[in-house]
């Protein structure tokens, strides 16, 4: 197999955006290939549901394709598509729970104590004790038990590795609110998973 030149393997994102804006569909497709896995995972983490995650993925990239001429390139394409996908995912949740308003402004106090109900140790290597599909189901159920505001913060900070400040900016939250939600989200997820993974 002939190895492709490095320049082809890792083409500059800005260059791809410029080419896509000029009408080169292959360049846009390369951007999609680069980020589709991350955007799908975002959809899974925020909606907690395969079908909704696929809708989020499609709607986000279709919207990005449509609005590419408006993309001002003052941020990375990845930041832009992530922002679109977060909005799509939250909209999806609003539609699903039309009787309950879903916003980033959950009515959680920022400094209250958290009751930790589950102190158990986990079995070693829980990921090796379940088939991948089982583990996916367990993680999906646990993340689905969080409120949208919490799971979105958890996803952006812990999975995507955005800074607290970047997460706050993306979600129009204060830095303090992001920190408080991350704290609670981590503990609640841990508690949910402990029900399955705790030792005997």
């Amino acid at each position, binding site marked *: 197999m002939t190895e492709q030149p490095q320049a082809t393997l890792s083409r500059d994102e800005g260059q791809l955006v410029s080419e896509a804006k000029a009408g080169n569909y292959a360049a846009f497709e390369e951007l999609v290939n680069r980020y589709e896995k991350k955007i799908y995972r975002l959809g899974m983490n925020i909606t907690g549901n395969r079908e909704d995650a696929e809708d989020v993925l499609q709607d986000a990239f279709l919207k990005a394709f449509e609005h590419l001429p408006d993309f001002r390139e003052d941020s990375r394409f990845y930041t832009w598509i992530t922002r679109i996908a977060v909005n799509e995912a939250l909209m999806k949740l609003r539609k699903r729970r039309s009787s309950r308003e879903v916003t980033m402004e959950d009515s959680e106090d920022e400094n209250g104590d958290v009751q930790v109900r589950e102190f158990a*140790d*986990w079995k070693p290597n829980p990921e090796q004790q379940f088939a991948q599909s089982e583990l996916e189901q367990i993680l999906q159920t646990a993340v689905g038990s969080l409120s949208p505001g919490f799971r979105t913060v958890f996803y952006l900070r812990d999975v995507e590795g955005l800074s607290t400040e970047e997460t706050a900016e993306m979600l129009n939250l204060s830095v303090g609110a992001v920190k408080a939600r*991350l704290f609670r989200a*981590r503990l609640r997820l*841990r508690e949910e998973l402990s029900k399955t993974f705790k030792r005997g």
Partner: protein
Amino acid sequence: MNCNKAIKEICRYLDGELDEGLKTTLETHLTYCNHCSAVYDSTRKTIQLYCDGKVFSLPDEVHTRLHDALKRKLQRGV
């Protein structure tokens, strides 16, 4: 340091945000408190599980449907 305070600081500890003094106090607490040590380990493990690229991997058919939808949009004209 009591357990309530330790639990509150575990999050900042995971993010490397604690100053040296508080970090040492928490680490000392974690060496003798099995409860808080279990909470710390399992919280760290929780994050790792969700970061694992194998979980929530993109199914081939979802990839195909996305690219088909984009091509249809391209053919219709944006």
